[in-house]
């Protein structure tokens, strides 16, 4: 196939597009196979990794914010002792 592609100038465009389609088909087949295997193994394994990552990010962002605000919040409590 490769040698023919290099030598046969006329057929180059069609050969390429066909190859591309063949590649897509290969991908589709592997994707379908992947989905089928996931469906068989259960949805829990797909959902589990995505959720904790989001929560972890929130924790990290919030902690940074809390550290930044800590001093100001401490002063606010001292200055408003009647409501704390």
């Amino acid at each position, binding site marked *: 196939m490769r040698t023919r592609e290099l030598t046969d100038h006329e057929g180059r465009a069609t050969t390429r597009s066909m190859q591309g389609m063949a590649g897509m088909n290969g991908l589709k087949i592997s994707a379908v196979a992947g989905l089928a295997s996931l469906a068989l193994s259960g949805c829990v394994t797909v959902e589990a990794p995505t959720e904790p990552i989001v929560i972890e990010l929130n924790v990290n962002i919030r*902690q940074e914010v809390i*550290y930044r*605000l800590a001093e100001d*919040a401490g002063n606010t409590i001292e200055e408003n*002792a*009647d409501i*704390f």
Partner: protein
Amino acid sequence: MGDFMTKRFTRAALFGAAFALAFGGIMAPASAQRDPAYASARAAGQIGEKMDGYIGIVGSETAELRRIVNDINIKRRAVYSQRAQANNATLEEYALTAGCQAILATSPGEKYQAPDGSWQTRTSAPPMRDSRCP
């Protein structure tokens, strides 16, 4: 004439300063102390510090406790909102930070909310706080 006017102004200024000092002196301690009803409910463990920066009713709810808690929380929220804006933070972020500090500032015997949501009595040991607290 000029001398007389200067004296008058000086006297007026001095009087104003003295008045402001006396007024401020009276006002400051009044606003710096807890309302007696709030202070006693807090000391009795009926009201506790929550993680979110507000106070809550620990045991069974009464109309009086609800009134005190709502009054304090509304005032806290106003302060948090103002300070959050000044620090480019959200109201929740600032309130949570204040909650960390307020729980840390509780006295032994007072109630506070632990990270699992349960009410705890503060001892001389450090309080159980959110892992994000400084």
